[in-house]
């Protein structure tokens, strides 16, 4: 069943992961502004993530990617605008929203003195998941991520990549309809990166949605159904890779080139490259 509203195509996918009818966008942000003192972190930002979609949020450092994700989690209050996740407002119904989201923070913040086993027990208890399904998910993912050797060691003693794996398992543990992943592949080895990418693909095939932030263009190019480029708290472009190419007349150009064009960084990058070349190689040329 297809329905068109506000220029957006809504496809009825049937029963979603949480058992609800997924006809609405799973993530909807309209006209959101966030201000920290005099600093405008998000400026009238709007985006939508539909079921079955991997939405990549791209932007330079400090562009507002993490803030956007925190607004969706209800961790940061928007000064203006509306936010809905699975039809709920994160500030008014935080428990409803958080129970439908799997979240991985940029620095994989977890309780470092706990072991992964203790940590998963805590997460499962907080999410009120039944023992059988929790054990099934944890066993499979821990096995896939090779966590056996580290399962009972304090998280503080694990490497960055292993901590990221623990955070990812905790985000998938309740099989939520929406995954909010802030730089999810940080520190992961090639095998684990592949596993995460496959998990994301499987998740959207089952009607879920993924919104993830990254600044690695190849990953965004590979995985994303749609890409939103964000700069200075504003969405400067949204669309599929082809749509972005057509917007910038960049036929055949890579996402990195498009990104630099859209964020008006092309000339600045060229200038910096020239300065670096001068600084490092001027002696050699002389």
């Amino acid at each position, binding site marked *: 069943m297809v329905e068109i509203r506000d220029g957006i195509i809504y496809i009825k996918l049937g029963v979603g992961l949480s058992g609800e009818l997924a006809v609405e966008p799973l993530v909807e942000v309209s006209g959101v502004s966030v201000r920290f003192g005099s600093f405008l972190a998000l400026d009238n930002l709007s985006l939508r993530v539909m079921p079955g979609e991997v939405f990549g949020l791209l932007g330079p450092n400090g562009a507002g990617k993490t803030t956007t994700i925190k607004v969706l989690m209800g961790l940061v209050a928007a000064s203006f605008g509306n936010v809905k996740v699975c039809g709920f407002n994160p500030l008014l119904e935080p428990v409803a929203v958080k129970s439908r989201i799997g*979240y991985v923070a940029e620095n994989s913040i977890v309780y470092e003195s706990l072991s992964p*086993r203790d940590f998963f*027990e805590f997460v499962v208890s907080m999410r009120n998941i039944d023992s059988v399904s929790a054990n099934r998910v944890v*066993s499979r993912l821990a096995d896939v991520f090779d966590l056996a050797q580290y399962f009972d060691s*304090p998280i503080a003693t694990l490497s960055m990549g292993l901590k990221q794996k623990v955070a990812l398992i905790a985000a998938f543990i309740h099989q939520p309809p929406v995954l909010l992943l802030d730089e999810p592949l940080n520190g992961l080895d090639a095998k684990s990166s592949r596993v995460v990418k496959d998990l994301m693909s499987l998740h959207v095939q089952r009607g879920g949605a993924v919104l993830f932030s990254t600044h690695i263009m190849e990953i965004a190019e590979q995985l994303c159904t749609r890409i939103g480029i964000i700069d200075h708290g504003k969405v400067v472009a949204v669309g599929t890779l082809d749509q972005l190419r057509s917007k910038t007349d960049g036929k055949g150009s890579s996402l990195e080139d498009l990104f630099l064009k859209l964020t008006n960084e092309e000339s600045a990058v060229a200038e910096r490259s020239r300065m670096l070349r001068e600084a490092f190689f001027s002696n050699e040329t002389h």
Partner: protein
Amino acid sequence: MKLTEAWRLSSLPYREVVYRSLAQERNRMWWGSFGRKSANKDSADDVELSKKALRIAKFDKIIIALFNLVVAIIPFSSFFFGSTAFGLSSSVSLSLAITFGFMTLYAIQTLSSFVSTDSSVLLSTLPVSQDDFSLITLFSFVRSVDYLVVGSILCQVILVAYLTLSPLAAALMFVASLINSVFAVTVALWLSRVFHKNYLRGGRSKRTTVFRDLFVLLWGCLLMGVGLLLSVPYYILPILDNTLQSANVLVGFLLSLFFPFSAGLLVSQLSGSIIPLFTTFGALAAMIFYVLGAWFSGKWSLGTVKLIAQGTGVKIDRSRAIDFQIKTSSPLRGYVMKDLRVTSRNPATAFFFVLPIFETVIVAFLASNVEFLRASTVLVATSMGAIFALLIPLALLNSEGKGIEYAKTLPITSQRMVSAKALITTLTFFPVPVALFCLALFKPPNSWFTVLIPFFMVISIVSARSLRF
């Protein structure tokens, strides 16, 4: 490298330790709103936060050093009130023992950051020789206890010089205070290492769990023992004085072999007190032994700090998990279990597991000398329990550290988090009314109504669950 240069550079790892320990515990009440205002900004205020962390650490060090001065002076206070009830030997011994306990307690709280290599990561990437690197790390370690050590040494030396007017006694007191400080820091470092090693052991076997629980209880008993020493010097002083003044030469001789009594007896001897020659020689021999002991323990501390900085001092045990089974529970029970686990793995907060035992002992101690259980005894016991009950939420919040940021992403209300903490606090307070009630069965109270007072207190602690943060 010049010592001044090494001292200057040592502010880098020191700053890192201070910043990390505060940033990880940004929700602690003591520090006010450290880091909270800028929680939403990425790193714009990191420099300001780092400066603030240093200011807080300095303030903290000054307060602790002042408190240490006060506890070092208390055993000498009788001299200033014209009383000669207690001898100089017992005052010196007790002052040294109390400052030892206090310094150990404080150092255990602060040195836990040193037992990981995090603070020297940046320094280790710079082109600095291994010896200089160790020296800088050692200085950064000294920086965390400098005010405390200098303050207690100065205070004790000045007091002895003033009371004895003997430069030799003052010089001996200086040596004794220095040894005391070296021993305190060494013991704290050793205990922190033992705790850290135990914490890194991991594993979930029954043997490991029993061992870990036992260790946490012993840890708590040790810290509480030091606390007891700090809180009841006037109970100890008469007993100590009687023992040191004992006519039994053998008892005096045996005591003279142990620090800090050996120092106390020697200082007393130099000030003109009459002490048997046999005991004086024993004390002198013991002091020489302790000076050597302090030299070696200082060297051990130096070596340990060096190993920690190099990251080679701690072996991490990785035992392969046999299964991936996890136990599920209700959200409240899950949060309580998490709080208990996290708190037991933090050397600064693990002590509270022994509070129920400690409270029972104190209640029994308070009631031991009375024939009837008076309302005043009940009130004192209840107030003591209430003070501990105030400390527990602080300890629980401290141990949450950065993890609270994760907890906020889970579908739980802040009220549930508070409920978990209120429940743990209530459970740790509960031994007070129970112990008083049991005592009342043997020592009849003036009125049975008084025994109910601490039970009313339970209601007010439980009511904390209605708070929000």
